[in-house]
Structure formats: C-alpha cells, structure tokens
C-alpha cells in the first residue's frame, strides 16, 4: 500500500519552491509569537494554553492541513498530469494511501513539531501543556490530511471548501452553535489532549471515546472514499 516513487513525487510537489515557503512561514510565526509572549509575560500556564489552543491548534494546524492535504493531489488533477500517474500499474487506493502518508508526515512536521517547540518556549512543558497540544496536533494532522485529501479528489475548489470547513465551521459555527463542536476535528483532538494533560487547562466538548472513535472513523472513511473517487475519476477541462 506504499509506493516510494509516488511518495517522492508528492514530497517534491508539496515542498517545492514557494509552497515550502508558506509552510515554513506559519510555524516560524508561531515560534516568534511564543518568544514575544514569553518575553512579555514570563512563563504562565494559562497564557501558554491560550496561544497553543487559540493560535496553533485552531488556526495553524487546519491551514497547514489544507495546504498539505489538497496540495498532495489537487494540482495534479487540476493540470491533468494525474493521468500519467493513473496509467501506471498501481492500485488507485495505493496512490491515495501513499499520498495520505506523505501529507500526514508533512502536516505533522510543520505543525506538531513547532507546537512542541512553542510550548517549551512558553512554559517549559509545565502541567504537560506542550506535550498535550503536540499530541492534539499530531492526531489532528492525521484526520485533517485524510479529510482534505478526499476534498482534493472530489472537487476542483478543494482549497476553498477546506478553508470554509476549517474557518467557518470550526471557528465561527463552533463558537456560536455548541452542537457544531461535536463534529469538529479540533474538538476530537482536544479530547485526546485533555487525557494527556489531565488538568483543566485543556478542555474539550466531546468525550475521549467519542473523539477517538470519530477520528478513526473519519480518517478511514475519507481515505476509502478518496480511493473510490480516484478509481472513477473523470478529467474535465478548466471550469
């Protein structure tokens, strides 16, 4: 289910030139903010939880997930070069799984590692906050990558829909309608983080079991359906 050549091509498409620039700029910004905040306020657990929860997990992880997840397959379908890949004797689900693994790896490296570093800068992992949010970012990376990779195979406007989900659904509806929070990758990841941290600083609206089950379910279903979509992919012209 893993093909090294496809993986190499996907890595190069994801980390080529400017894409790597924007992927690298976000974590850098997070670390700069952490340094500034630490200099302004000193080590404070609540502040650390605010920055990591409000900025890292709520904004940075979904955006990196969108870029990596849709970027792994979207541009290829868009410019039609995916036919050269599909005409090779490879199972379509294999292509999807390989691209998913690459997308997950990229999202993890660019979101979870900076989260850990930022957490260590902010309060030196006091009350396990840095580790808890890193775990949340790792878990969220998997689900986001699978979800956005599916979007990439379903629609040509995958980036827009991905951003609508990440920003409008999770941020806007999540803050207004409590029910929307049950259906949010961010809350599921927070449920896992809550278990790691143990304290009251990291809270989630869903229980650990619900969160974990939904995470696994979404990842598996999205990957399976993306494979099915790729099997019956039709290539159309621009717009």
């Amino acid at each position: 289910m893993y093909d090294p050549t496809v993986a190499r091509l996907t890595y190069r498409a994801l980390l080529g030139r400017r894409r790597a620039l924007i992927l690298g700029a976000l974590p850098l910004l997070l670390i700069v903010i952490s340094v500034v905040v630490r200099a302004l306020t000193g080590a404070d657990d609540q502040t650390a939880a605010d920055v990591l929860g409000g900025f890292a997990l709520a904004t940075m992880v979904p955006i990196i997930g969108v870029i990596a997840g849709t970027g792994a397959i979207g541009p290829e379908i868009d410019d039609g070069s995916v036919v050269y890949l599909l005409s090779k004797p490879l199972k379509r689900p294999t292509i999807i799984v390989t691209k998913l693994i690459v997308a997950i790896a990229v999202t993890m490296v660019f979101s979870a590692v900076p989260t850990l570093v930022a957490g260590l800068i902010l309060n030196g992992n006091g009350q396990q906050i840095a580790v808890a949010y890193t775990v949340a970012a790792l878990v969220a990376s998997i689900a986001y990558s699978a979800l956005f990779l599916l979007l990439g195979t379903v629609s040509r406007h995958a980036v827009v829909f991905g951003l609508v989900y990440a920003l409008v659904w999770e941020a806007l509806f999540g803050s207004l309608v409590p029910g929307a929070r049950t259906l949010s990758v961010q809350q599921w990841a927070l449920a896992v983080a809550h278990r790691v941290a143990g304290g009251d600083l990291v809270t989630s609206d869903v229980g650990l079991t619900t969160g974990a089950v939904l995470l696994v379910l979404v990842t598996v279903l999205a990957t399976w359906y993306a494979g099915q979509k790729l099997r019956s992919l039709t290539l159309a012209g621009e717009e």
Partner: protein
Amino acid sequence: MTVERPTGTPVTSAGDQTRIHNIGYRTYDGPRLGRAYARRSLYSQSLRGAYGLGRSGRSKVLPMLLFAVMCLVAAILVAVTVTTKAKGLPVHYTRYAIIMQGLISLYVASQAPQSVSRDLRFKTVPLYFSRPIETADYVRAKYASLASAIFILTAAPLLVLYVGALLAKLDFADQTKGFAEGLVSVALLSLLFAGIGLVIAAVTPRRGFGIAAVIAVLVISYGAVSTLEAIADTQSSTGAIPWIGLFSPVTLIDGVQTAFLGATSSAPGAAGPGSGQGVVYVLVVLGLIAGAYGLLLRRYKKVGL
C-alpha cells in the same frame, strides 16, 4: 462595416506598384476604440467575473452565497430592530465589516486568484499587452475591479442596514452620518484587501495555492494579532495594544475608524488608537495600498514580456 472594396480588381496607387503580388488582403480601417475602451472592458469583465457572471454556474455559487449571507445577516439585524422597536441598530455601521471579516477574507481569497492567476497560468498576459493597453492599464483595471467587487460585497449590507434603520424611524441625521462613516471605512477596507489579495495572487499561477496564501496572510495575521492583544490586555499593558494592531489588515481598518470615523475599537478593552496613533494607522494603510499597486506594476512589467 467598412466600405466594400471591389475584390479582384485591386486599386492601383503609388504603393501598390512596388508590390510583387497583391492577393487582395484588406487592412482594417474601421473605428479603433483605443486604450480607454479596452481598459473599461477589462474592468467590467473582471468585475462581472468576481461575482461569477459570464462564468460557469459552479463559479457563481461561492461569491453569490457569500454576498447573500452578508446581506441576510444585515436583514436579520434590521428585522430585530424593527420588531423590538429598539432605539438604535444592534450593530454599528463601522462594526459590521469587522464582525463579518471571515466571509470577506474568504471572498478576497477566492476571487483575487481567479482574477489574475489564470491569465498567468495560461500565459495570456502578453496577449493583453499586444493590444493598445499597457501594464498600468491592466493593473489599474484589475485592482479597481476587485476593489469594486469587495466594496459591493461590504457596502450592500450597510445599505440594507441604513434603509432598515430609516424604515424603523430611527434618527435620520444620526443614521446618515453613521452610514457615511461606514461607507468610507469599507471603501478603505476594499482597497486594502484588494491590494493584498492581488499582490499575493499575482505571484503564483496556481489558483489553489493563491487561495491558501491569501487566506493565510489575512487570517493568520489577524489570529496572531488578536492573540497578542488579548495577552497584552490581561497583562494590563493597554498602551501596547494599538501598536500591535498595526500588523493585521482587519485591525488596521478597525484602528483607522476608531481614530477618525467615530467607531468603538473591537480590540480587547476597546483600546483603540487615539488621534496621534490614528495618523500612523492611516499612513500605514495608504502606504500598503500604494505599495501593493507598485508591486503589481513591477510584477506585470516582468510577466508582460
């Protein structure tokens, strides 16, 4: 139509005698509409395109949906005001765009790349410049069309609010003043957002990547600034909040309207800039707009060849 020349029997003039063959090609001698006409056409085409008019049904969905939601929320606010017989609108005119900034950012992110990226990707930019228009015309037409599109998106709900306020028999002078202030603020916002969106979109020929880059700049900068502002507020260093606000487009507009357009700041603790800092805000906004225009000119000097 031009005057028909008899084909087959070529008109003999001084120039024709130097030709070896005359196979009857005719040059265009109708009216030439010129640079201004081309620029106007490009402007109106781009403006229509920003709402999906003249494009496929699918590309109408998102801009129209965002426009509908913007107006719908305003209509709901008006309905609430009318039924509860309130003394004023629940949301001030200048505040509306700040509350709806997520939708506005999404609109800019989805329409800025569609306006310029495809020209770059299919290498049609040199074709534009083979016509009478020049780099500055192209940039001006694209900039103006996107700014107008965002202005329509942000001003229409204000109009809904204003008409609703008048129907609810709120004070006419008061509402008109607020409406005018709101219009100035969204005009500035449109120019600023259009500039930022176009500069980023013009760098990349890939539409999807352009969308992600624009939204990242708009949303991440706001996320970072508001996080820092909240922390400065809890540390009770309120003096720092106006300076932090200089680093994201939304808080910039918020600062300008707080200082000069009678708005209350949406920063934590309503700690907006005073008049002195307000001048800095205005200068930064104008500098960013001029800078965006300059960068676009530079970019198209290069890709136009």
